[in-house]
């Protein structure tokens, strides 16, 4: 921190990343719509937009890590920002997934005449909840236990143990995603098979996507722990990843009970 500074706040330097991220998002949206409507150049614009967005995410977060880890701008007061931000983000994610469970319950509690008046709809083959779905359910909470192991290891100053614990967390996450892929491959229905397919794949697919995002977040934390970025007293990035991971592993129980089990028998 600069010696002459008389307050504990971080006054950020001008940065090109907000505008480059906005342009990337614009190109992705316009390119995506063009591509889905088979306009010429749609695929090119979509790809450029996504590359631009991913590049912006990389360099923006790189800058934040430099400001916090190397330049020491993230005082206790500054750390409150990302903490509130992470919590509000997770709350918004809860609402996002809540909508999909609402859609599933809305369609299954009073199935319409058009699908035979029954749930699952007539002709739809459903997965046995006690096979792959049951197997996949305890893997994420085990991964949640491993991230708690990593957290206590960081607090206890056991740096190597924390790296091992994060490796275990990420491996369990990858196994879970692998089983989810296997389940989708074996599934008798697709997203275009009635309201059952739409609600089933929307809810479980978005949960799986969140698992992948959380896995990437944990991989970054593992690399940072290996490089010695995280200390006993300052590891906000890790805490945010752990909160997010617990959200993802707890949310897994809802599709298991309401969609696979209740909605599949």
């Amino acid at each position, binding site marked *: 921190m600069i010696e002459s500074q008389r307050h504990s706040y971080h006054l950020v330097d001008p940065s090109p990343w907000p505008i480059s991220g906005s342009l990337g998002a614009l190109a992705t949206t316009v390119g995506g719509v063009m591509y889905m409507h088979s306009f010429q150049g749609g695929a090119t614009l979509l790809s450029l937009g996504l590359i631009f967005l991913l590049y912006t995410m990389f360099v923006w977060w790189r800058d934040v890590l430099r400001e916090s880890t190397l330049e020491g701008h993230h005082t206790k007061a500054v750390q409150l920002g990302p903490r509130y931000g992470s919590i509000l983000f997770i709350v918004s994610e809860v609402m996002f997934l809540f909508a999909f469970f609402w859609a599933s319950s809305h369609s299954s509690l009073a199935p319409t005449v058009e699908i035979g008046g029954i749930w699952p709809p007539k002709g739809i083959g459903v997965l046995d909840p006690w096979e792959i779905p*049951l197997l996949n359910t305890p893997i994420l909470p085990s991964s949640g236990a491993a991230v708690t192991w990593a957290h206590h290891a960081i607090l*206890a100053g*056991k740096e190597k143990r924390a790296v091992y614990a994060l490796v275990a967390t990420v491996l369990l996450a990858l196994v879970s995603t692998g089983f989810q892929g296997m389940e989708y491959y074996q599934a008798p229905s697709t*997203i*275009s*098979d009635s309201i059952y397919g739409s609600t089933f794949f929307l809810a479980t697919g978005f949960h799986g996507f969140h698992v992948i995002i959380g896995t990437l977040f944990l991989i970054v934390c593992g690399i940072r722990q290996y490089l010695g970025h995280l200390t006993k007293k300052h590891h906000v990035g890790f805490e945010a990843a752990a909160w997010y991971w617990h959200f993802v592993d707890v949310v897994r129980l809802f599709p298991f009970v309401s969609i696979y089990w209740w909605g599949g028998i």
Partner: protein
Amino acid sequence: MASAAARSGLRSLAARAKATAAPAARRRMSSSAHDDAHETAKWEKITYAGIVTCTLLAAYNLSKGHPHFDEPPAYPYLHIRNKEFPWGPDGLFENKHH
């Protein structure tokens, strides 16, 4: 006189409390580091128990083989196609070869 004695007694009690509070507080700090080491070991064991459970469940589950389904009748709400995707008639993950 009595009140002065009581006051001094209280003061010495407070002083003693302060003196004992300080090392107690320090002890709590060192024991919290110990707690973290203890918790680390505990959660490591819980993780291993989770991995063992998942492995056993996977071995049992996968040994049962996977189910096969018959093609359902062509109900109008199955295999919905409103228009072609940019890459062709089927969704990216919709080709089923069982």
